[in-house]
């Protein structure tokens, strides 16, 4: 049967997928809010943090994994998006929405304005990404890494000094509009964009820059332009993740965006396998869940101090020592699974052939 030509174009399929995704997410969030299990809120919180970390890891993977530019300033971009969108909702959108009475109109308005704030926050982060990407004109490798790290710290210190945004006290009372639906919608979009990007001409140019900058340049790839592009795209999504984080927590503090946060995201990307989108997702899930899952150890060890972060760090070291190329290497999850299936089938075939060989000998029945 022939598929209609409309379904063949990728954007129609993606749009359909996105619409179905929105439906699924709406249904899921409706169900999840009504599950009558005690203590579900705690797990719900972890799931949302996993979603935010997926956005962060997949977007950093565009910069670090695909374009090969080592950025250590993801927390800085996240902070810009978080504070940028929170500034809009806290001072303008929030008070505006509050004027409306409860009801559908208010609900729609709130979510439309939230989407707008998220995108504007992301754009602010993207502008910052452009500014940071520019020095990559001249800097390479570790020097670029330390500049991005320094940039993230500068952002944090500036935020510590902006009285209007709460300075060191933090900004409390950010409208709590972030929820399961928005977080996973954007996680979906980030993954989708990232996957489409790899197979586009831009993505191919990223890979060329990563593999060999000089060769890429010789082939006519404008390396600077593509490096800056990677930074802009990656930091846009980091900004969106920051916006979602701020509106979920409903509180922001510059201390949330220390370079340790960037390190956590880098650990996710590297552990998943640099350049592997599904690897980033898997590692984001593992590394977000790990400290929470280790909570039980505290009671078990019967100590007053909290040993879970110590165990987390040991597990990070052990995971890295056992899989230096990352959990999935540069492959995607389905590639790894497909290959396993192939080898299983091949083994089965070999076995059958073996049987036939044996069967070809003189047999008793014959």
């Amino acid at each position, binding site marked *: 049967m022939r598929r209609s030509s409309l379904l063949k174009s990728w954007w129609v399929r993606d749009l359909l997928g996105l619409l179905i995704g929105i439906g699924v997410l709406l249904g899921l969030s409706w169900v999840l809010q009504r599950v009558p299990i005690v203590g579900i809120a705690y797990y719900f919180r972890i799931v949302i943090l996993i979603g935010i970390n997926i956005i962060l890891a997949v977007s950093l993977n565009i910069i670090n994994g695909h374009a090969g530019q080592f950025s250590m300033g993801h927390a800085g971009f996240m902070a810009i998006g978080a504070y940028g969108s929170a500034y809009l909702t806290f001072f303008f959108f929030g008070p505006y929405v509050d004027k409306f009475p409860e009801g559908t109109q208010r609900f729609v308005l709130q979510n439309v304005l939230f989407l707008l704030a998220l995108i504007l926050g992301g754009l602010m982060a993207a502008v910052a990404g452009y500014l940071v990407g520019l020095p990559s004109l001249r*800097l390479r490798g570790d020097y670029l890494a330390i500049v991005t790290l*320094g940039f993230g710290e500068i952002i944090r210190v500036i935020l*510590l*000094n902006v009285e209007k945004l709460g300075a060191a006290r933090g900004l409390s009372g950010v409208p709590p509009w972030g929820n399961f639906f928005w977080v996973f919608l954007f996680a979906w979009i980030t993954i989708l964009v990232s996957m489409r990007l790899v197979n586009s001409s831009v993505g191919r140019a990223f890979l060329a820059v990563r593999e060999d900058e000089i060769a890429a340049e010789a082939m006519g790839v404008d390396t600077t332009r593509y490096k800056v592009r990677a930074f802009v795209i990656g930091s846009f999504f980091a900004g969106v993740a920051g916006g979602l984080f701020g509106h979920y927590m409903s509180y922001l503090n510059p201390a949330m965006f220390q370079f340790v946060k960037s390190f956590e995201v880098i650990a996710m990307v590297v552990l998943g396998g640099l350049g592997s989108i599904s690897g980033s997702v898997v590692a984001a899930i593992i590394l977000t869940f790990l400290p929470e899952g280790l909570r039980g150890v505290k009671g078990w060890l019967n100590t007053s101090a909290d040993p879970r972060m110590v165990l*987390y*760090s040991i597990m*990070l070291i052990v995971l890295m020592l056992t899989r230096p190329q990352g959990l999935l290497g540069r492959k995607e999850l389905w590639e790894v699974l497909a290959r396993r299936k192939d080898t299983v089938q091949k083994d089965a075939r070999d076995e059958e052939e073996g049987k036939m060989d044996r069967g070809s000998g003189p047999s008793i029945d014959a």
Partner: protein
Amino acid sequence: MQTILQNLLNGIAAGSIYALIALGYTMVYGILKLINFAHGDVFMLGSMMGFYGSRWLHRLRGGEALAVAESSWWSAVLILLFAMVVCGVFGYLNERIAYRPLRNAPRIASLITAIGVSFFLEYGGQMVFGPNPKFFPSIIEKHRLEFFGVVTTSYQVIVLGVALFFMLLLQYIVFGTKFGRAMRAVSFNYETASLMGIPTDRVVSTTFVLGSALAAVAGILYGLSYPKIDPLMGIMPGLKAFVAAVLGGIGNVPGAVIGGLIIGVVEAFVAGSQWSTYRDAIAFVILILILLFRPSGLFGKSQAEKV
């Protein structure tokens, strides 16, 4: 004029501590091209060992547990050596366990284990030493000194003297001994050095021991100058020392010292001005400005790319 001199003096004292930490970063980077992010936490370990060392020493002599440790030159030197040995052993184990197995893996893998070790020291430190700040004992008597209206303490003089001593010692080790020659050879080309019969693994281990011992010295000097110490104290000085190493051209030993001094002095001037709340950002601003004009640091070699 006096305030300028005063700031300069404070800056040089703080900068020499940064420089001692930066030396560890730059030596390891020069040899392995690895940013050893755990180094700032080794510095914290050194400071903590100074704290516990002075306590144990005091108890050994039959003193009461909580009394102020008596201050004498000999006990101070003993405490310093104790911290250096503990950190040196840690540095050796760190390299052996977390970095050596990844020698042939992608470079970024050992960066992640470095981050893991850093987390391990920070959180483990909170577990073992407790998360609350401790008061570093005055292991040497403190005097107030005054030259030409510039107020200083004997501590600043000691910090400068000790830091200078260890920098000169390192300079001698790197440029004046057989081991130093091996170290420079490994840093120049790891594989060729091993083909020439240089025991590269041993050189790398010794480099880690040296760097960690210097971090311990820095930790003690830091404890003397700013007596509040806690398990997370290594993060910021470590990061700034790393910036200092990059500023001077990472892999370059005198560059790390000069980078450290620059950052210390500029920070002292910023802290004394109306912009004092931006003190923590200034190191990075200088870094970005310098790297924009000299992409491989002040004294770094700009390597020609091979095609």
